Protein backbone atom coordinates (compact mmCIF):
# COMPACT_ATOMS: atom_id res chain seq x y z
CA UNK A 1 0.00 0.00 0.00
CA UNK A 2 2.73 2.45 0.88
CA UNK A 3 4.24 1.86 -2.54
CA UNK A 4 1.07 3.18 -4.08
CA UNK A 5 1.12 6.13 -1.68
CA UNK A 6 4.63 7.12 -2.66
CA UNK A 7 3.71 6.89 -6.33
CA UNK A 8 0.59 8.99 -5.79
CA UNK A 9 2.41 11.64 -3.82
CA UNK A 10 5.21 11.79 -6.37
CA UNK A 11 2.67 12.16 -9.16
CA UNK A 12 0.83 14.97 -7.45
CA UNK A 13 3.98 16.84 -6.53
CA UNK A 14 5.15 16.34 -10.09
CA UNK A 15 1.99 17.88 -11.47
CA UNK A 16 2.36 20.85 -9.13
CA UNK A 17 5.98 21.30 -10.17
CA UNK A 18 4.99 21.10 -13.83
CA UNK A 19 2.36 23.76 -13.35
CA UNK A 20 4.91 25.94 -11.59
CA UNK A 21 7.29 25.65 -14.52
CA UNK A 22 4.46 26.42 -16.93
CA UNK A 23 3.91 29.65 -15.05
CA UNK A 24 7.27 30.87 -16.21
CA UNK A 25 7.20 29.34 -19.65
CA UNK A 26 3.71 30.05 -20.98
CA UNK A 27 3.00 33.12 -23.09
CA UNK A 28 1.02 35.82 -21.31
CA UNK A 29 -2.42 35.01 -22.75
CA UNK A 30 -2.26 31.35 -21.89
CA UNK A 31 -0.82 32.02 -18.49
CA UNK A 32 -3.88 34.11 -17.67
CA UNK A 33 -6.20 31.46 -19.02
CA UNK A 34 -4.47 28.82 -16.94
CA UNK A 35 -4.71 31.02 -13.84
CA UNK A 36 -8.46 31.02 -14.30
CA UNK A 37 -8.50 27.31 -15.08
CA UNK A 38 -6.54 26.54 -11.91
CA UNK A 39 -9.19 28.23 -9.78
CA UNK A 40 -12.05 26.61 -11.64
CA UNK A 41 -10.14 23.36 -11.23
CA UNK A 42 -10.28 23.86 -7.47
CA UNK A 43 -14.03 24.30 -7.82
CA UNK A 44 -14.20 21.09 -9.81
CA UNK A 45 -12.17 19.28 -7.15
CA UNK A 46 -14.61 20.40 -4.50
CA UNK A 47 -17.47 19.15 -6.63
CA UNK A 48 -15.71 15.87 -7.25
CA UNK A 49 -15.42 15.14 -3.56
CA UNK A 50 -19.19 15.03 -3.31
CA UNK A 51 -20.02 13.63 -6.73
CA UNK A 52 -17.14 11.32 -7.57
CA UNK A 53 -16.27 9.97 -4.15
CA UNK A 54 -19.48 10.19 -2.17
CA UNK A 55 -21.76 9.53 -5.12
CA UNK A 56 -24.07 12.51 -4.56
CA UNK A 57 -24.91 14.41 -7.73
CA UNK A 58 -25.55 18.02 -6.83
CA UNK A 59 -26.97 20.39 -9.42
CA UNK A 60 -26.52 23.43 -7.20
CA UNK A 61 -22.81 23.89 -6.59
CA UNK A 62 -22.87 27.33 -8.16
CA UNK A 63 -24.24 28.52 -4.84
CA UNK A 64 -21.17 27.35 -2.94
CA UNK A 65 -18.78 28.91 -5.43
CA UNK A 66 -20.80 32.11 -5.28
CA UNK A 67 -20.97 32.05 -1.50
CA UNK A 68 -17.20 32.36 -1.54
CA UNK A 69 -17.26 34.83 -4.41
CA UNK A 70 -19.78 37.13 -2.80
CA UNK A 71 -18.55 36.51 0.73
CA UNK A 72 -15.10 37.73 -0.16
CA UNK A 73 -16.19 40.30 -2.73
CA UNK A 74 -18.82 42.01 -0.63
CA UNK A 75 -16.51 42.00 2.39
CA UNK A 76 -13.96 43.93 0.38
CA UNK A 77 -16.44 46.20 -1.39
CA UNK A 78 -18.78 47.15 1.42
CA UNK A 79 -16.79 46.45 4.55
CA UNK A 80 -13.35 47.37 3.33
CA UNK A 81 -11.76 44.19 4.62
CA UNK A 82 -8.31 43.20 3.42
CA UNK A 83 -7.81 40.28 1.12
CA UNK A 84 -6.84 37.61 3.65
CA UNK A 85 -9.76 38.30 5.99
CA UNK A 86 -12.09 38.59 3.02
CA UNK A 87 -10.90 35.17 1.87
CA UNK A 88 -11.66 33.76 5.28
CA UNK A 89 -15.09 35.39 5.12
CA UNK A 90 -15.73 33.69 1.83
CA UNK A 91 -14.78 30.33 3.31
CA UNK A 92 -17.00 30.89 6.30
CA UNK A 93 -19.97 31.75 4.07
CA UNK A 94 -19.40 28.61 2.06
CA UNK A 95 -19.18 26.46 5.17
CA UNK A 96 -22.32 27.91 6.70
CA UNK A 97 -24.32 27.58 3.50
CA UNK A 98 -23.11 24.01 2.96
CA UNK A 99 -24.04 23.07 6.50
CA UNK A 100 -27.59 24.43 6.15
CA UNK A 101 -28.18 23.09 2.65
CA UNK A 102 -26.65 19.75 3.54
CA UNK A 103 -28.75 19.30 6.65
CA UNK A 104 -31.88 19.79 4.55
CA UNK A 105 -30.93 18.24 1.24
CA UNK A 106 -29.45 15.07 2.73
CA UNK A 107 -32.91 14.12 3.89
CA UNK A 108 -33.51 13.27 0.24
CA UNK A 109 -31.70 10.91 -2.11
CA UNK A 110 -31.12 10.36 -5.80
CA UNK A 111 -33.23 12.45 -8.13
CA UNK A 112 -34.86 14.38 -5.31
CA UNK A 113 -31.42 15.39 -4.04
CA UNK A 114 -30.49 16.69 -7.48
CA UNK A 115 -33.65 18.73 -7.72
CA UNK A 116 -33.42 20.09 -4.18
CA UNK A 117 -29.84 21.26 -4.66
CA UNK A 118 -30.79 22.82 -7.98
CA UNK A 119 -33.69 24.65 -6.36
CA UNK A 120 -31.65 25.98 -3.45
CA UNK A 121 -29.05 27.22 -5.90
CA UNK A 122 -31.75 28.91 -7.94
CA UNK A 123 -33.02 30.70 -4.83
CA UNK A 124 -29.46 31.87 -4.17
CA UNK A 125 -29.15 33.13 -7.73
CA UNK A 126 -32.47 34.97 -7.57
CA UNK A 127 -31.38 36.45 -4.26
CA UNK A 128 -28.29 37.95 -5.87
CA UNK A 129 -30.62 39.63 -8.35
CA UNK A 130 -33.26 40.62 -5.83
CA UNK A 131 -30.79 42.24 -3.48
CA UNK A 132 -29.24 44.10 -6.36
CA UNK A 133 -28.83 47.17 -4.20
CA UNK A 134 -25.93 45.38 -2.53
CA UNK A 135 -24.82 42.98 -5.19
CA UNK A 136 -25.45 45.03 -8.38
CA UNK A 137 -27.00 41.84 -9.80
CA UNK A 138 -26.04 40.90 -13.33
CA UNK A 139 -23.89 43.92 -13.81
CA UNK A 140 -21.76 42.94 -10.89
CA UNK A 141 -19.15 44.61 -8.77
CA UNK A 142 -15.63 45.43 -9.82
CA UNK A 143 -13.05 45.31 -7.07
CA UNK A 144 -10.20 47.74 -7.43
CA UNK A 145 -6.68 46.37 -7.35
CA UNK A 146 -5.86 48.56 -4.39
CA UNK A 147 -8.57 46.82 -2.41
CA UNK A 148 -7.20 43.40 -3.19
CA UNK A 149 -3.54 43.71 -2.39
CA UNK A 150 -2.06 41.45 0.22
CA UNK A 151 0.45 42.63 2.75
CA UNK A 152 2.41 39.72 4.08
CA UNK A 153 5.63 39.75 6.10
CA UNK A 154 6.45 43.21 4.81
CA UNK A 155 5.93 42.12 1.22
CA UNK A 156 3.37 43.65 -1.06
CA UNK A 157 1.43 41.30 -3.39
CA UNK A 158 -0.51 42.93 -6.19
CA UNK A 159 -3.14 40.60 -7.66
CA UNK A 160 -3.24 42.34 -11.00
CA UNK A 161 0.33 41.24 -11.62
CA UNK A 162 -0.09 38.12 -13.77
CA UNK A 163 2.73 36.22 -12.11
CA UNK A 164 1.38 36.92 -8.64
CA UNK A 165 -2.05 35.85 -9.79
CA UNK A 166 -0.76 32.62 -11.29
CA UNK A 167 1.28 31.92 -8.19
CA UNK A 168 -1.66 32.49 -5.87
CA UNK A 169 -3.93 30.29 -7.98
CA UNK A 170 -1.30 27.58 -8.09
CA UNK A 171 -0.82 27.81 -4.34
CA UNK A 172 -4.51 27.31 -3.69
CA UNK A 173 -4.68 24.46 -6.18
CA UNK A 174 -1.69 22.71 -4.62
CA UNK A 175 -3.09 22.98 -1.12
CA UNK A 176 -6.50 21.71 -2.20
CA UNK A 177 -5.01 18.94 -4.32
CA UNK A 178 -2.98 17.60 -1.43
CA UNK A 179 -5.91 17.95 0.95
CA UNK A 180 -8.14 15.94 -1.41
CA UNK A 181 -5.45 13.31 -1.72
CA UNK A 182 -5.27 13.06 2.05
CA UNK A 183 -9.05 12.83 2.40
CA UNK A 184 -9.55 10.12 -0.19
CA UNK A 185 -6.82 7.97 1.32
CA UNK A 186 -8.08 8.41 4.86
CA UNK A 187 -10.53 6.11 6.66
CA UNK A 188 -13.20 8.79 6.19
CA UNK A 189 -12.54 8.73 2.45
CA UNK A 190 -13.00 4.96 2.39
CA UNK A 191 -16.32 5.37 4.16
CA UNK A 192 -17.46 7.91 1.57
CA UNK A 193 -16.70 5.47 -1.21
CA UNK A 194 -18.53 2.76 0.71
CA UNK A 195 -21.57 5.02 1.03
CA UNK A 196 -21.44 5.61 -2.71
CA UNK A 197 -21.22 1.91 -3.46
CA UNK A 198 -23.82 0.59 -1.02
CA UNK A 199 -25.19 2.93 1.59
CA UNK A 200 -27.34 0.44 3.44
CA UNK A 201 -24.46 -1.97 3.84
CA UNK A 202 -22.34 0.87 5.16
CA UNK A 203 -24.99 1.67 7.76
CA UNK A 204 -25.10 -1.97 8.76
CA UNK A 205 -21.36 -1.90 9.32
CA UNK A 206 -21.97 0.67 12.01
CA UNK A 207 -21.22 3.90 10.18
CA UNK A 208 -23.35 6.98 10.65
CA UNK A 209 -23.85 7.69 6.98
CA UNK A 210 -25.67 10.97 7.55
CA UNK A 211 -22.81 12.66 9.39
CA UNK A 212 -20.30 11.31 6.91
CA UNK A 213 -22.32 12.65 4.00
CA UNK A 214 -22.81 15.99 5.73
CA UNK A 215 -19.07 16.26 6.32
CA UNK A 216 -18.54 15.63 2.63
CA UNK A 217 -21.06 18.30 1.66
CA UNK A 218 -19.38 20.83 3.94
CA UNK A 219 -15.89 19.98 2.71
CA UNK A 220 -17.10 20.18 -0.87
CA UNK A 221 -18.82 23.50 -0.19
CA UNK A 222 -15.80 25.02 1.53
CA UNK A 223 -13.44 24.02 -1.28
CA UNK A 224 -15.85 25.43 -3.87
CA UNK A 225 -16.16 28.62 -1.83
CA UNK A 226 -12.38 28.86 -1.62
CA UNK A 227 -12.26 28.82 -5.41
CA UNK A 228 -14.94 31.50 -5.55
CA UNK A 229 -13.30 33.71 -2.95
CA UNK A 230 -9.95 33.44 -4.69
CA UNK A 231 -11.62 34.23 -7.99
CA UNK A 232 -13.12 37.41 -6.61
CA UNK A 233 -9.86 38.51 -5.04
CA UNK A 234 -7.60 37.64 -7.95
CA UNK A 235 -9.75 38.68 -10.87
CA UNK A 236 -11.66 41.46 -9.18
CA UNK A 237 -15.14 40.76 -10.52
CA UNK A 238 -18.24 39.56 -8.69
CA UNK A 239 -21.44 39.02 -10.62
CA UNK A 240 -24.69 37.04 -10.72
CA UNK A 241 -23.64 34.92 -13.68
CA UNK A 242 -21.46 32.87 -11.39
CA UNK A 243 -24.51 31.92 -9.36
CA UNK A 244 -26.55 30.85 -12.36
CA UNK A 245 -27.29 27.23 -13.14
CA UNK A 246 -24.58 27.18 -15.77
CA UNK A 247 -21.94 27.19 -13.03
CA UNK A 248 -23.62 24.20 -11.44
CA UNK A 249 -23.50 22.24 -14.66
CA UNK A 250 -19.96 23.12 -15.70
CA UNK A 251 -18.19 21.41 -12.75
CA UNK A 252 -20.23 18.29 -13.46
CA UNK A 253 -19.05 18.39 -17.04
CA UNK A 254 -15.42 19.01 -16.09
CA UNK A 255 -15.41 16.18 -13.58
CA UNK A 256 -17.09 13.76 -15.97
CA UNK A 257 -14.55 14.54 -18.66
CA UNK A 258 -11.49 14.31 -16.46
CA UNK A 259 -12.68 11.31 -14.49
CA UNK A 260 -14.94 11.35 -11.45
CA UNK A 261 -13.46 9.88 -8.26
CA UNK A 262 -9.92 10.58 -9.33
CA UNK A 263 -7.95 13.35 -7.63
CA UNK A 264 -6.37 14.80 -10.76
CA UNK A 265 -9.32 14.22 -13.07
CA UNK A 266 -11.17 17.45 -12.23
CA UNK A 267 -8.18 19.62 -13.09
CA UNK A 268 -7.58 17.81 -16.38
CA UNK A 269 -11.24 18.00 -17.26
CA UNK A 270 -11.44 21.72 -16.53
CA UNK A 271 -8.32 22.46 -18.56
CA UNK A 272 -9.38 20.37 -21.53
CA UNK A 273 -12.95 21.56 -21.60
CA UNK A 274 -11.95 25.19 -21.26
CA UNK A 275 -9.64 24.98 -24.23
CA UNK A 276 -12.07 22.82 -26.18
CA UNK A 277 -14.83 25.37 -25.76
CA UNK A 278 -12.48 28.24 -26.49
CA UNK A 279 -11.05 26.64 -29.63
CA UNK A 280 -14.30 25.31 -31.00
CA UNK A 281 -16.14 28.58 -30.42
CA UNK A 282 -13.59 30.60 -32.35
CA UNK A 283 -13.17 27.93 -35.04
CA UNK A 284 -16.88 27.56 -35.56
CA UNK A 285 -17.48 31.29 -35.44
CA UNK A 286 -14.93 31.75 -38.21
CA UNK A 287 -16.14 28.86 -40.29
CA UNK A 288 -19.84 29.52 -39.92
CA UNK A 289 -20.13 33.16 -38.94
CA UNK A 290 -23.88 33.48 -39.50
CA UNK A 291 -24.85 30.54 -37.40
CA UNK A 292 -24.35 32.04 -33.95
CA UNK A 293 -22.42 28.99 -32.89
CA UNK A 294 -21.38 29.34 -29.30
CA UNK A 295 -20.06 27.12 -26.61
CA UNK A 296 -23.47 25.90 -25.52
CA UNK A 297 -23.70 23.53 -28.43
CA UNK A 298 -20.24 22.15 -27.68
CA UNK A 299 -21.06 21.70 -24.01
CA UNK A 300 -24.31 19.94 -24.84
CA UNK A 301 -22.73 17.57 -27.29
CA UNK A 302 -19.84 16.86 -24.93
CA UNK A 303 -22.20 15.98 -22.08
CA UNK A 304 -24.20 13.57 -24.20
CA UNK A 305 -21.16 11.87 -25.73
CA UNK A 306 -19.44 11.59 -22.35
CA UNK A 307 -22.34 10.05 -20.59
CA UNK A 308 -23.10 7.66 -23.43
CA UNK A 309 -19.66 6.41 -24.37
CA UNK A 310 -17.15 7.58 -21.84
CA UNK A 311 -18.71 7.71 -18.40
CA UNK A 312 -15.48 7.11 -16.56
CA UNK A 313 -13.74 10.07 -18.14
CA UNK A 314 -10.10 10.26 -19.07
CA UNK A 315 -8.31 9.38 -15.84
CA UNK A 316 -11.04 7.00 -14.84
CA UNK A 317 -10.52 4.98 -17.98
CA UNK A 318 -6.75 5.14 -17.59
CA UNK A 319 -7.06 3.90 -14.03
CA UNK A 320 -9.32 1.07 -15.02
CA UNK A 321 -7.17 -0.16 -17.86
CA UNK A 322 -3.60 0.54 -16.85
CA UNK A 323 -2.82 2.44 -13.67
CA UNK A 324 -4.83 0.79 -10.96
CA UNK A 325 -3.08 2.65 -8.16
CA UNK A 326 -4.25 6.08 -9.32
CA UNK A 327 -6.09 7.74 -6.43
Amino acid at each position, binding site marked *: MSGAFVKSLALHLGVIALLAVLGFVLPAYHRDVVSRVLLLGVFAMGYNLLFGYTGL*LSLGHAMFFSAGLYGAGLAVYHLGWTAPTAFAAGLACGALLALCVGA*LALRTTGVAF*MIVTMMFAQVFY*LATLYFGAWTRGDEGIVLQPAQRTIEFAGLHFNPTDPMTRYGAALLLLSVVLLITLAIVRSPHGCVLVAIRENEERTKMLGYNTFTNKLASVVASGVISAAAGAAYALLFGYVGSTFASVQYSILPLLWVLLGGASTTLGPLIGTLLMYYLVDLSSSLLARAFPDW*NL*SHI*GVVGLAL*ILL*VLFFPKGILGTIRERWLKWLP
Partner: protein
Amino acid sequence: MPFGPHLLLATLEGLVSSAVLALTALGLSLVFGVMRVVNVAHGEFFMIGAIVAWWVASLFGGHPAAGFVAALVISPLFVGAIAFASERLVLRRLNYNPEATIVATIGLLYLLQQAALSFYGPEARPVEAPFNYRILLPWFGYSGYKLFVILAAVVLLFLTWLVLTRTRIGLVMRATQFDRETAQAFGIPVERVYAGVFAMGAMLAAVAAVLIVPISQAHYLMGQDPLLLSFIVVIIGGLGSLRGTLVAALLIGMSDGIVSMFFSPTLAKMLATGAVALVLVFRPQGLFGTAVR
Protein backbone atom coordinates in the same frame (compact mmCIF):
# COMPACT_ATOMS: atom_id res chain seq x y z
CA MET B 1 -57.33 50.98 -11.51
CA PRO B 2 -59.03 50.32 -8.16
CA PHE B 3 -57.99 47.21 -6.26
CA GLY B 4 -60.94 44.93 -7.03
CA PRO B 5 -60.69 45.13 -10.81
CA HIS B 6 -56.90 45.01 -10.53
CA LEU B 7 -57.25 41.73 -8.67
CA LEU B 8 -59.67 40.48 -11.31
CA LEU B 9 -57.16 41.32 -14.00
CA ALA B 10 -54.43 39.57 -12.05
CA THR B 11 -56.72 36.56 -11.63
CA LEU B 12 -57.43 36.33 -15.32
CA GLU B 13 -53.74 36.62 -16.11
CA GLY B 14 -53.10 33.94 -13.52
CA LEU B 15 -55.63 31.65 -15.14
CA VAL B 16 -53.92 31.99 -18.48
CA SER B 17 -50.57 31.14 -16.87
CA SER B 18 -52.11 28.21 -15.02
CA ALA B 19 -53.71 26.86 -18.17
CA VAL B 20 -50.48 26.83 -20.14
CA LEU B 21 -48.51 25.65 -17.13
CA ALA B 22 -50.89 22.75 -16.54
CA LEU B 23 -50.35 21.47 -20.06
CA THR B 24 -46.58 21.83 -19.87
CA ALA B 25 -46.29 20.33 -16.42
CA LEU B 26 -48.53 17.44 -17.38
CA GLY B 27 -46.02 16.48 -20.05
CA LEU B 28 -43.23 16.45 -17.47
CA SER B 29 -45.36 14.57 -14.97
CA LEU B 30 -46.26 11.84 -17.44
CA VAL B 31 -42.65 11.28 -18.37
CA PHE B 32 -41.56 11.04 -14.77
CA GLY B 33 -44.54 9.00 -13.72
CA VAL B 34 -44.21 6.34 -16.40
CA MET B 35 -40.49 6.35 -17.11
CA ARG B 36 -39.13 7.54 -13.79
CA VAL B 37 -36.74 9.92 -15.53
CA VAL B 38 -36.38 13.65 -15.06
CA ASN B 39 -36.23 15.40 -18.41
CA VAL B 40 -34.34 18.64 -17.87
CA ALA B 41 -34.75 19.49 -21.55
CA HIS B 42 -38.53 19.68 -21.19
CA GLY B 43 -38.46 23.47 -21.27
CA GLU B 44 -36.56 23.33 -24.54
CA PHE B 45 -39.28 21.18 -26.11
CA PHE B 46 -41.60 24.02 -25.12
CA MET B 47 -39.25 26.56 -26.69
CA ILE B 48 -38.85 24.63 -29.94
CA GLY B 49 -42.63 24.33 -30.08
CA ALA B 50 -42.91 28.11 -29.97
CA ILE B 51 -40.21 28.65 -32.55
CA VAL B 52 -41.67 26.13 -34.98
CA ALA B 53 -45.03 27.83 -34.46
CA TRP B 54 -43.47 31.14 -35.48
CA TRP B 55 -41.91 29.52 -38.52
CA VAL B 56 -45.15 27.86 -39.64
CA ALA B 57 -47.08 31.09 -39.09
CA SER B 58 -44.53 32.99 -41.17
CA LEU B 59 -45.13 30.57 -44.04
CA PHE B 60 -48.82 31.29 -44.15
CA GLY B 61 -49.30 34.76 -45.62
CA GLY B 62 -53.05 35.15 -45.31
CA HIS B 63 -55.25 35.13 -42.28
CA PRO B 64 -53.27 34.46 -39.10
CA ALA B 65 -55.83 31.85 -38.05
CA ALA B 66 -54.73 29.57 -40.87
CA GLY B 67 -51.12 29.73 -39.75
CA PHE B 68 -52.17 29.21 -36.17
CA VAL B 69 -54.14 26.07 -36.87
CA ALA B 70 -51.33 24.72 -39.00
CA ALA B 71 -48.87 25.45 -36.20
CA LEU B 72 -51.13 23.66 -33.71
CA VAL B 73 -50.78 20.55 -35.82
CA ILE B 74 -47.25 20.77 -37.18
CA SER B 75 -45.38 22.03 -34.12
CA PRO B 76 -46.29 19.18 -31.74
CA LEU B 77 -45.51 16.64 -34.43
CA PHE B 78 -42.10 18.19 -35.06
CA VAL B 79 -41.25 18.38 -31.38
CA GLY B 80 -42.60 14.89 -30.82
CA ALA B 81 -40.29 13.58 -33.51
CA ILE B 82 -37.27 15.19 -31.85
CA ALA B 83 -38.29 13.73 -28.52
CA PHE B 84 -38.81 10.30 -30.02
CA ALA B 85 -35.38 10.40 -31.63
CA SER B 86 -33.72 11.51 -28.39
CA GLU B 87 -35.35 8.70 -26.51
CA ARG B 88 -34.27 6.09 -28.98
CA LEU B 89 -30.74 7.33 -29.55
CA VAL B 90 -29.79 8.39 -26.06
CA LEU B 91 -32.12 7.59 -23.19
CA ARG B 92 -32.67 3.99 -24.09
CA ARG B 93 -28.93 3.37 -24.35
CA LEU B 94 -28.50 4.70 -20.84
CA ASN B 95 -31.10 2.24 -19.64
CA TYR B 96 -32.97 5.14 -18.04
CA ASN B 97 -30.39 5.38 -15.26
CA PRO B 98 -31.55 8.43 -13.26
CA GLU B 99 -28.21 10.23 -12.97
CA ALA B 100 -27.06 9.53 -16.49
CA THR B 101 -30.43 10.60 -17.88
CA ILE B 102 -30.28 13.91 -16.13
CA VAL B 103 -26.80 14.58 -17.49
CA ALA B 104 -27.87 13.52 -20.98
CA THR B 105 -31.00 15.69 -20.93
CA ILE B 106 -28.90 18.64 -19.78
CA GLY B 107 -26.79 18.03 -22.87
CA LEU B 108 -29.95 17.86 -24.95
CA LEU B 109 -31.08 21.14 -23.41
CA TYR B 110 -27.92 22.88 -24.58
CA LEU B 111 -28.07 21.29 -28.03
CA LEU B 112 -31.65 22.41 -28.56
CA GLN B 113 -30.79 25.92 -27.41
CA GLN B 114 -27.87 25.99 -29.80
CA ALA B 115 -30.08 24.74 -32.62
CA ALA B 116 -32.61 27.47 -31.94
CA LEU B 117 -29.84 30.04 -31.76
CA SER B 118 -28.40 28.90 -35.08
CA PHE B 119 -31.56 28.41 -37.08
CA TYR B 120 -33.73 31.09 -35.51
CA GLY B 121 -31.31 33.58 -34.03
CA PRO B 122 -31.06 35.42 -30.73
CA GLU B 123 -33.96 37.78 -31.34
CA ALA B 124 -37.42 37.55 -29.89
CA ARG B 125 -40.09 37.57 -32.55
CA PRO B 126 -43.84 37.96 -32.10
CA VAL B 127 -46.53 35.80 -33.63
CA GLU B 128 -49.87 37.23 -34.52
CA ALA B 129 -52.86 35.86 -32.67
CA PRO B 130 -55.40 33.99 -34.83
CA PHE B 131 -58.07 36.49 -33.99
CA ASN B 132 -58.26 39.87 -32.37
CA TYR B 133 -61.31 40.21 -30.26
CA ARG B 134 -61.47 42.41 -27.27
CA ILE B 135 -63.98 41.63 -24.56
CA LEU B 136 -65.08 44.84 -22.90
CA LEU B 137 -65.54 44.62 -19.16
CA PRO B 138 -66.69 47.65 -17.17
CA TRP B 139 -63.16 48.32 -15.90
CA PHE B 140 -60.88 47.12 -18.67
CA GLY B 141 -60.80 45.43 -22.03
CA TYR B 142 -59.49 41.89 -22.06
CA SER B 143 -58.10 39.88 -24.94
CA GLY B 144 -60.58 37.31 -26.22
CA TYR B 145 -57.67 35.22 -27.38
CA LYS B 146 -56.41 34.83 -23.82
CA LEU B 147 -59.80 33.52 -22.80
CA PHE B 148 -59.60 31.15 -25.74
CA VAL B 149 -56.25 29.90 -24.45
CA ILE B 150 -57.82 29.03 -21.11
CA LEU B 151 -60.65 27.23 -22.85
CA ALA B 152 -58.36 25.39 -25.23
CA ALA B 153 -56.13 24.24 -22.40
CA VAL B 154 -59.08 22.95 -20.42
CA VAL B 155 -60.32 21.02 -23.44
CA LEU B 156 -56.90 19.54 -24.11
CA LEU B 157 -56.44 18.56 -20.46
CA PHE B 158 -59.83 16.89 -20.53
CA LEU B 159 -58.93 15.02 -23.70
CA THR B 160 -55.65 13.87 -22.15
CA TRP B 161 -57.51 12.68 -19.09
CA LEU B 162 -59.91 10.77 -21.35
CA VAL B 163 -57.04 9.12 -23.16
CA LEU B 164 -55.33 8.21 -19.91
CA THR B 165 -58.35 6.79 -18.15
CA ARG B 166 -60.66 5.57 -20.87
CA THR B 167 -58.58 4.26 -23.71
CA ARG B 168 -56.43 1.16 -24.05
CA ILE B 169 -53.37 3.27 -24.70
CA GLY B 170 -53.92 5.08 -21.47
CA LEU B 171 -54.40 1.82 -19.64
CA VAL B 172 -51.15 0.51 -21.05
CA MET B 173 -49.39 3.67 -19.91
CA ARG B 174 -50.77 3.49 -16.41
CA ALA B 175 -49.93 -0.19 -16.15
CA THR B 176 -46.34 0.49 -17.15
CA GLN B 177 -46.16 3.30 -14.62
CA PHE B 178 -47.49 1.15 -11.86
CA ASP B 179 -45.25 -1.86 -12.31
CA ARG B 180 -42.87 -2.10 -15.22
CA GLU B 181 -41.93 -5.73 -14.78
CA THR B 182 -45.46 -6.99 -14.50
CA ALA B 183 -46.44 -4.94 -17.53
CA GLN B 184 -43.67 -6.61 -19.47
CA ALA B 185 -44.81 -10.00 -18.26
CA PHE B 186 -48.22 -9.21 -19.66
CA GLY B 187 -46.75 -8.59 -23.08
CA ILE B 188 -46.81 -4.82 -23.00
CA PRO B 189 -44.00 -3.47 -25.20
CA VAL B 190 -42.50 -1.31 -22.49
CA GLU B 191 -39.83 0.17 -24.73
CA ARG B 192 -42.41 1.40 -27.21
CA VAL B 193 -44.56 2.76 -24.41
CA TYR B 194 -41.58 4.71 -23.11
CA ALA B 195 -40.83 6.19 -26.53
CA GLY B 196 -44.47 7.10 -26.96
CA VAL B 197 -44.78 8.68 -23.53
CA PHE B 198 -41.62 10.70 -23.96
CA ALA B 199 -42.90 12.00 -27.30
CA MET B 200 -46.31 12.70 -25.82
CA GLY B 201 -44.82 14.68 -22.95
CA ALA B 202 -42.89 16.82 -25.41
CA MET B 203 -45.94 17.31 -27.58
CA LEU B 204 -47.99 18.59 -24.66
CA ALA B 205 -45.29 21.17 -23.98
CA ALA B 206 -45.25 22.13 -27.65
CA VAL B 207 -49.00 22.65 -27.76
CA ALA B 208 -48.81 24.82 -24.67
CA ALA B 209 -46.10 26.86 -26.38
CA VAL B 210 -48.16 27.31 -29.55
CA LEU B 211 -51.02 28.62 -27.43
CA ILE B 212 -48.85 31.06 -25.53
CA VAL B 213 -46.64 32.37 -28.31
CA PRO B 214 -49.15 34.92 -29.67
CA ILE B 215 -49.27 36.40 -26.18
CA SER B 216 -45.55 36.39 -25.46
CA GLN B 217 -42.82 36.12 -28.07
CA ALA B 218 -40.68 33.31 -29.42
CA HIS B 219 -37.14 33.43 -28.05
CA TYR B 220 -34.44 30.82 -27.77
CA LEU B 221 -34.18 31.20 -23.99
CA MET B 222 -37.91 31.06 -23.31
CA GLY B 223 -37.76 27.48 -22.10
CA GLN B 224 -36.11 28.21 -18.77
CA ASP B 225 -39.06 29.62 -16.87
CA PRO B 226 -41.57 26.96 -18.02
CA LEU B 227 -39.08 24.28 -16.99
CA LEU B 228 -38.67 25.66 -13.50
CA LEU B 229 -42.39 26.23 -13.04
CA SER B 230 -43.25 22.78 -14.40
CA PHE B 231 -40.82 21.23 -11.96
CA ILE B 232 -42.44 23.12 -9.14
CA VAL B 233 -45.92 22.07 -10.21
CA VAL B 234 -45.00 18.42 -10.62
CA ILE B 235 -43.20 18.21 -7.30
CA ILE B 236 -45.82 20.03 -5.29
CA GLY B 237 -48.68 18.24 -7.00
CA GLY B 238 -47.06 14.86 -6.55
CA LEU B 239 -45.24 12.99 -9.26
CA GLY B 240 -47.54 10.97 -11.45
CA SER B 241 -50.75 12.42 -10.10
CA LEU B 242 -52.95 14.07 -12.72
CA ARG B 243 -55.21 15.75 -10.21
CA GLY B 244 -52.22 16.96 -8.24
CA THR B 245 -50.67 18.47 -11.34
CA LEU B 246 -53.85 20.39 -12.12
CA VAL B 247 -54.33 21.72 -8.63
CA ALA B 248 -50.68 22.66 -8.28
CA ALA B 249 -50.68 24.36 -11.70
CA LEU B 250 -53.64 26.41 -10.63
CA LEU B 251 -51.98 27.29 -7.36
CA ILE B 252 -48.63 28.19 -8.86
CA GLY B 253 -50.00 29.93 -11.90
CA MET B 254 -52.37 32.07 -9.88
CA SER B 255 -49.90 32.95 -7.16
CA ASP B 256 -47.15 33.64 -9.65
CA GLY B 257 -49.45 35.90 -11.60
CA ILE B 258 -50.80 37.68 -8.56
CA VAL B 259 -47.52 38.01 -6.71
CA SER B 260 -45.77 39.13 -9.90
CA MET B 261 -48.35 41.80 -10.45
CA PHE B 262 -48.32 43.17 -6.95
CA PHE B 263 -44.77 42.43 -5.94
CA SER B 264 -41.57 41.66 -7.77
CA PRO B 265 -41.47 38.70 -10.16
CA THR B 266 -38.05 37.82 -8.80
CA LEU B 267 -39.44 37.57 -5.29
CA ALA B 268 -42.29 35.42 -6.56
CA LYS B 269 -39.88 33.03 -8.18
CA MET B 270 -37.69 32.94 -5.09
CA LEU B 271 -40.57 32.01 -2.87
CA ALA B 272 -41.91 29.40 -5.26
CA THR B 273 -38.50 27.78 -5.76
CA GLY B 274 -37.74 27.76 -2.06
CA ALA B 275 -41.17 26.31 -1.32
CA VAL B 276 -40.76 23.44 -3.72
CA ALA B 277 -37.34 22.58 -2.33
CA LEU B 278 -38.78 22.41 1.17
CA VAL B 279 -41.74 20.35 -0.03
CA LEU B 280 -39.33 17.84 -1.55
CA VAL B 281 -37.36 17.71 1.67
CA PHE B 282 -40.23 17.34 4.10
CA ARG B 283 -43.09 15.92 2.11
CA PRO B 284 -41.66 14.22 -0.95
CA GLN B 285 -44.94 12.81 -2.12
CA GLY B 286 -46.25 16.32 -2.69
CA LEU B 287 -49.87 17.13 -2.05
CA PHE B 288 -51.54 14.28 -3.84
CA GLY B 289 -48.92 11.74 -4.76
CA THR B 290 -48.72 8.46 -2.93
CA ALA B 291 -45.78 8.02 -0.59
CA VAL B 292 -42.89 6.20 -2.19
CA ARG B 293 -43.06 2.56 -1.21
